[in-house]
């Protein structure tokens, strides 16, 4: 048996490793430590926002005010945010007819009714993890302090980007369409239906098609729409187009779909309440 350095305990080494492994298995299998991670994320985001709003920003703005550039920068920022918001609204208006076909949306009179579109700003989005790993999540802060429930559709000016997961009154998580554990029912113009899963690659989802069930033909750049079957996403919204068709077996193909909406394109998103 290998000699250990002085005062090192073999029992301590192995037992710590076993406990860590057990914790990893429990979290991997049952998500047991999700509340701990949520608590840590909420706390760190609170500290970030607090320190940014009450410590960093005042110092920063006081320095900037010397050269009088702060006003111009703020104006640009506000205009950009307003533009993002307007683009989201435009997206909703341009898809009004489609959205109105769905019983769970009522935005027929956008000007007079209280628009059920809640603007939210990104507070944390790990772009690194979005590009490298399967887990594609972001944390948003609603503009109006309100509790955003789970399973609400989150959009930007380019289309649907994902759905919400409730955390607390000031914060909610968004699971993106490309997240490995996310599924969205889709269809094409030829009434072909499928449940697409996130591929774990930015802007990509996939759908496995059993060719023995029905005769269907696919071609690249064919448009793909949401089918609305899950009751979460509205029916008929264009979500992307076929990017690649892979043959898994002689009787099965995998459609790789490239999504229209890029979550990196703006800092503002809308939640369809």
């Amino acid at each position, binding site marked *: 048996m*290998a*000699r*250990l*350095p*002085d*005062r*090192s305990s073999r029992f*301590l*080494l*192995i037992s*710590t*490793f076993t*406990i*860590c*492994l*057990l*914790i*990893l*298995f*429990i*979290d*991997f299998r049952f998500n*047991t*430590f999700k509340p*701990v*991670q949520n608590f*840590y*994320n909420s706390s760190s985001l609170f500290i970030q926002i607090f320190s940014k709003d009450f410590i960093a920003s005042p110092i920063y703005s006081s320095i900037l005010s010397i050269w009088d550039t702060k006003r111009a920068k703020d104006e640009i920022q506000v205009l950009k945010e307003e533009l993002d918001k307007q683009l989201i609204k435009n997206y909703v208006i341009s898809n009004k007819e489609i959205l109105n076909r769905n019983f769970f949306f009522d935005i027929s009179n956008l000007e007079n009714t209280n628009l059920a579109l809640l603007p939210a700003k990104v507070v944390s989005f*790990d*772009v*690194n*993890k979005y*590009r*490298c*790993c*399967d*887990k594609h*999540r972001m944390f948003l802060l609603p503009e109006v302090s309100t509790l955003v429930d789970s399973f609400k559709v989150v959009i930007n000016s380019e289309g649907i980007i994902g759905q919400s997961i409730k955390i607390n009154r000031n914060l909610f998580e968004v699971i993106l369409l490309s997240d*490995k554990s996310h599924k969205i029912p889709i269809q094409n113009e030829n009434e072909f239906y499928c449940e697409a899963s996130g*591929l*774990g*690659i930015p802007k990509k989802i996939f759908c496995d098609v059993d060719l023995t069930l029905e005769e269907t033909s696919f071609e690249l750049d064919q448009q793909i729409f949401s089918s609305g079957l899950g009751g979460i996403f509205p029916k008929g919204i264009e979500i992307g187009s076929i990017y690649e068709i892979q043959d898994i077996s002689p009787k099965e193909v995998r459609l790789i779909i490239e999504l229209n909406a890029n979550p990196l394109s703006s800092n503002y998103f809308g939640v369809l309440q």
Partner: protein
Amino acid sequence: MRVSGFIFLTILFLILSSIDMKVNLFLLDFFIVSNLTYLFLCYLCFMNPQKINSIFAAYIGFFIDLHQNVFFGLHATLFTLTVLLINYNYFRLRMFSTFQTTIAFSFFTAFFVGFKSILLTTMNFQYLLVFLSFFSAFVSYLIIPSLGKLLTNKIKL
């Protein structure tokens, strides 16, 4: 280890983890990942096996799991395993030259990246990433000992 040293090392590891995350954002296009945190732990454990023990590795690992928002216990398990390996091969590694030690730790890093990728990028596992991480770790480890000496000089581990 004193409490101040303990806190200092915790903050140091969190900073290194943040640097890794920021650097990886740019390097990922070239299939390279930075693992300064892991190499720093290897270095500390190799230099002070009595003080940088498995409990410390697990503690730092859990912190990094929370910081990087990955599966709870992923870094803790891999860090503990690394400490275990270094402790079990301590006298063998002590006899190695610096070059050989660097190669050994680069191998550890490649396995670390591989295990992490299996759990975090299950559907897009890339062997090239694991392969290149060996070389990136080799290059990174050239600066780690001097960085480690500079940073841990004050706390006297």
